[in-house]
C-alpha cells in the first residue's frame, strides 16, 4: 500500500503530512493533529458528529479519505475561535443553552458555520435543513436552532 503525501490548510495553517491511503480525514484530524473536538459517532456518515468544513462546506470526515484533503482547506471546531475568543456562533450556543451532553455540538457548529457561510441570514426552515445531517440524541434541537438564529442576527465578522 502506497503512502500519500499531503499539503493542505488545517484551521488556517499550512500542513504537510504523509499518510497511508486507507486512513480517513477524521483519523488524521484526531490522531495526527490531536484535535479531539471532531467526534466519531456512527463512522458511516449518518450522524454528523464528525462534520468539518472542507473549502467552507460541511462534510462528514469519517467517510472521506485523508488523501482528499490535499490542496484543500479544512476547518475543525478548533478553528472557529479567533484571538482566544469564541466566535458568535459558539457564544450563541452558550447563551441559548444549546449544549446538553455536548457530543453532537462540534458537528452542529460546523454545519451551522457552513450554512451561515452560504446563507448569512437563514430562515428557521433553512436552519433546520442546514442541520438535517446532525443528530442530537438529547433532542436539544430547538435551542440549537435558536442559537443559530441568534448568531445570524448578530452583526460583526466571522
Amino acid at each position, binding site marked *: 500500500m502506497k503512502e500519500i503525501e499531503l499539503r493542505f490548510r488545517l484551521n488556517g495553517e499550512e500542513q504537510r503530512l504523509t499518510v497511508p491511503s486507507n486512513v480517513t480525514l477524521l483519523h488524521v484530524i484526531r490522531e495526527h493533529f490531536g484535535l479531539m473536538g471532531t467526534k466519531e459517532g456512527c463512522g458511516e456518515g449518518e450522524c454528523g458528529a464528525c462534520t468539518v468544513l472542507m473549502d467552507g462546506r460541511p462534510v*462528514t470526515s469519517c467517510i472521506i*479519505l485523508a488523501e482528499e484533503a490535499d490542496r484543500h482547506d479544512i476547518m475543525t471546531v478548533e478553528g472557529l475561535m479567533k484571538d482566544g475568543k469564541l466566535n458568535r456562533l459558539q457564544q450563541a450556543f452558550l447563551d441559548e443553552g444549546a449544549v446538553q451532553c455536548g457530543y453532537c455540538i462540534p458537528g452542529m457548529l460546523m454545519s451551522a458555520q457552513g450554512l451561515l457561510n452560504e446563507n448569512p441570514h437563514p430562515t428557521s426552515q433553512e436552519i433546520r435543513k442546514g442541520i*438535517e445531517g446532525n443528530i442530537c440524541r438529547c433532542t436539544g434541537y430547538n435551542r440549537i436552532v435558536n442559537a443559530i438564529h441568534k448568531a445570524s442576527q448578530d452583526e460583526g465578522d466571522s
Partner: protein
Amino acid sequence: MLPQFELYLPKSVEETSEILLTYNSNARIYAGGTDVLVQMAKGQSKPEALVDIKGLAELRGISYSAAKELSIGALTTHHELENSDLIKKKYAALHDGVSRVGSVQTRNRGTIGGNLCSALPSADSAAPLLALGAKVIINGSGGERELPLEKFYLGIKHTALEPGEILTKIVIPALARHNAQAYIKFSRRNAMDLALMGVAICYELDGLHVSKARIALTTAAPTPVRAYGAEAFLTGKALTEANLKEAGVLAAEEAKPRDSWRSGAEYRRGLIKVLLPRISRLALERMGKARSENERD
C-alpha cells in the same frame, strides 16, 4: 480503520479504464465516497483498489449543447445541482430529487454519477432523470457509447457498465416549451432516510393535452422504473382529476414493490395512487406560476 487497498488517482478516462481492467472486478470507483466508504467501513465491500476519479476534469460541469440538450458531468455533486438556477427553473423534477438525497453533508460530497451507478431502487436522482428522458454517456476501453437511462439499469446494484467502463455524463434532451414536472420523495424522516416511495413526472403539453408523458418510480421495483401503462393512458388527454386518479391506479398496478421493514408492498402501492395525482397537481401549479412570471417579464 478501513481495510487496506491500493489507491489510484488517474487523470484521464483511458488511464481509469486501464486500472479497472487490471483489477478485473476488484477495483471500485471512488467519487463522493458516500456509498463506497460506508460499505467498506461496515466490511461489506473489500476492494483491492480504489480509483479516485475526481481528477477527471471532463467529468465535471453542467452545460447546454447547440441542440439544447443539457449535459451533466458524472462528478457533479448533488449540492452543485441543488444550487444551480438552471436546474431549479428548467429541471424542477431533478432539483426536487437532488435536494432530498441524504443530508447537507451527503449532498456536498455525493455525485449524480455515483447515485446512478450505485443502482439502488431508491436513488432520488434516478426517477427524475427517467421522467426527463435522460441518456447516459459511457466511456472506456471500447470507446464512447450512449444508453437510455432505462437500459442502464439491469438490477439491484447492477448496471450495464462493462469491465473498464465508467459513466461520464448524463444528457437530458430538449423538452417541449410547456412542460410540467416534479418529484416527490415520501419518507418517514426528511433527512438521511430512503424513500418509501418516490414518484417523478414530466408532462410535455400541447395546449391542455399531454403530448408526451413520462412517469417514473423509485422503490417500486428492483430498479427505478417507468410506469408505461400510466403514461400511455395520459397521452393525448387533459390532466383532469379523474384522469390523474386513473393514472395513479394504473401506475400502482404495474409497479412491483416489495415488502421490507421500511414498508409493506400494499402500502407502497397505495402511496403511488395518492402521490401521482398529488405531484401532478404540484407540477401544474408550478408551470402556471412560471408562465405568469414569464408574461410579466
